[in-house]
């Protein structure tokens, strides 16, 4: 089922959580709502579920107007950040809950419920835990059960609030793959909230980047990463070097950005390069981060490369002089609502040359 969000706004007291948001989610899509805390992403998710009432706008599932419908009528599956499993019920009873509370007319028989729950337990690969209580499960297991419980009512839309927020890095990685697989198997329209850009880029078909209650950009993970439409999106989706060229009077309201891995370091001068001094070298597994100081502006910046590239470059130590080529610098206008001014290689390189060298 596709979701259409039309011009939706929601305020809590004086705090405008969601501002005139419009969004079109096609059937079967896997969407990440990405943004920092307070960006309105969770509120938007809760508005879709009906857990919050909106102030203005409309929410449609396909052609059905769900704007003022109750949670029940919307037929959504919602997975809460802290799982919200029923503590006093076994895992089996937790998953069966949604079926057991149905009115007698539509309630499946006991055998059917048992069958359905067992099927779901198999889907989340935890059929051996049916008789346990939530407190006896690990965080990752609880998350899977929460998902199984939400799926039991056969929702047409699956909504997940920070699904992996409370888990440690390794379990998170596992569950990401697992959730993708489940989505592929069931093909339910799925929307999840996250503040982790890596999670959004890795899992989603569509990434919706939010900030201050508004949508900054909608696109595939590749689009939002490669062609960010605003300085916020650029800086939120990964590590970034920021240069404020305030010393150039004519361009005082411009900020240039470049990602660390887009900086090429050389030991000999070649092309348009900036003379820089190495101030730190961090080797993090298979990547190497080098912190440098520009000779011209004294700004610190960071370059990133694979350990292979690092070894190819030859011995580098603190205090060495390197030549940095800024291959993909992007300039955003500070004043025009952070919207993109220039992008790509042409033009910018030239303007950069005049600024930097």
């Amino acid at each position: 089922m596709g979701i259409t969000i039309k011009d939706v706004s929601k305020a809590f007291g004086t705090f405008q959580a969601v501002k005139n948001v419009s969004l079109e989610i096609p059937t079967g899509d896997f969407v990440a709502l990405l943004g920092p805390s307070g960006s309105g992403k969770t509120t938007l998710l809760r508005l879709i579920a009906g857990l919050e009432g909106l102030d203005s706008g409309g929410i449609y599932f396909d052609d059905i107007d769900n704007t003022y419908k109750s949670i029940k009528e919307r037929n959504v599956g919602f997975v809460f950040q802290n799982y919200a499993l029923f503590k006093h019920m076994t895992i089996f009873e937790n998953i069966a809950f949604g079926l057991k509370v149905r009115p007698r007319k539509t309630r499946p028989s006991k055998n059917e419920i048992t069958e359905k729950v067992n099927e779901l337990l198999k889907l989340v690969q935890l059929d051996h835990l049916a008789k346990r209580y939530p407190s006896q499960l690990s965080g990752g297991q609880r998350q899977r059960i929460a998902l199984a419980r939400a799926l039991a009512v056969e929702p047409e839309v699956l909504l997940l609030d920070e699904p992996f927020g409370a888990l440690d890095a390794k379990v998170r990685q596992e569950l990401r793959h697992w959730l993708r697989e489940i989505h592929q198997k069931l093909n339910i329209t799925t929307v999840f909230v996250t503040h982790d850009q890596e999670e959004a880029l890795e899992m989603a078909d569509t990434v919706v980047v939010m900030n201050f209650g508004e949508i900054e950009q909608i696109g595939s993970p590749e689009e939002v990463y490669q062609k960010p439409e605003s300085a916020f999106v650029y800086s939120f989706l990964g590590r970034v070097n920021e240069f404020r060229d305030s010393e150039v009077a004519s361009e005082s309201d411009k900020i240039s950005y470049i990602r660390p891995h887009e900086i090429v370091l050389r030991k000999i001068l070649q092309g348009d390069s900036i003379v820089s001094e190495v101030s730190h070298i961090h080797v993090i597994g298979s990547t190497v981060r080098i912190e440098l100081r520009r000779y011209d502006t004294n700004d610190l910046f960071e370059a990133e490369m694979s350990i292979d590239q690092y070894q190819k470059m030859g011995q580098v130590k603190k205090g060495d002089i390197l030549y940095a080529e800024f291959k993909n610098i992007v300039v955003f206008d500070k004043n025009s609502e952070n919207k993109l001014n220039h992008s790509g290689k042409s033009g910018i390189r030239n303007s950069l040359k005049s600024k930097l060298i």
Partner: protein
Amino acid sequence: MIVRDTTLHAKNVKTTFQPGLLTKWLLITVAIGFLGIFIVVPLIAVFSEALNKGVQLYFAALTEPDAVSAIKLTLITAAITIPVNTIFGVFAAWAIAKFEFKGKNILITLIDIPFAVSPVIAGLVFVLLFGSQGLFGPFLEANNIKIIFGIPGIILATIFVTFPFVVRELLPIMQEQGTEEEQAAITLGANGWQMFFRVTLPNIKWGLLYGVILCNARAMGEFGAVSVVSGHIRGLTNTIPLHVEILYNEYNFTAAFAVASLLAMLALLTLILKSFVEWKTKKH
């Protein structure tokens, strides 16, 4: 390296353990001594005085018509007060813990009033409202309804005095639990009643029971407020505590202590139940 660490550790324990032991036993002795003098001795005194003149007199004092009527009235009062305060206590705790609204703090303060105010004042308030000189007095008299110096007055005063027990017990539990499980129940298609009986109630049941036990103990034992509104009519508007007072004032000590021993037993029973519930809650 490891060996050195453990010896260092052992030394530390030893130096802090010695004076700790002394403090510990001193504190325990003081606590037991205090409790012995102020609680255990009086409790024994109640029972020994009650049984002073033999078991026969003890039971005679309990089965005498006025005593039976006092016991009955106390049970009726508790039987009405507890359900009322349980239901409204759950409502109030739910409203406060799970919803945001203006005047919430005022409501919390209002709930605490019965604890803050002397029970005598509580009784007087009802006399001022429903007594013949009171606000609703003429109306009640015209319609032949008797509240003060009657059973309704006793029940009203008891409800007032015992209202905070259930709410106060539930509030922290409900606040700690938040609303996520309830929201989950709703998203899974449960209606309000299903949510309450299948999710909310099971989560608060031990706290609720604890509150009910305390409420019951106070409802049966309340003296001040009930004394003001009762009118002390023997066999009609006397509860157990009032009956004890009357007997005592008549120098009928054996009977007074015999009836009082019922309240003492109620207290012991309450404590046992309370410990059981506490143990259950911890296990939960």
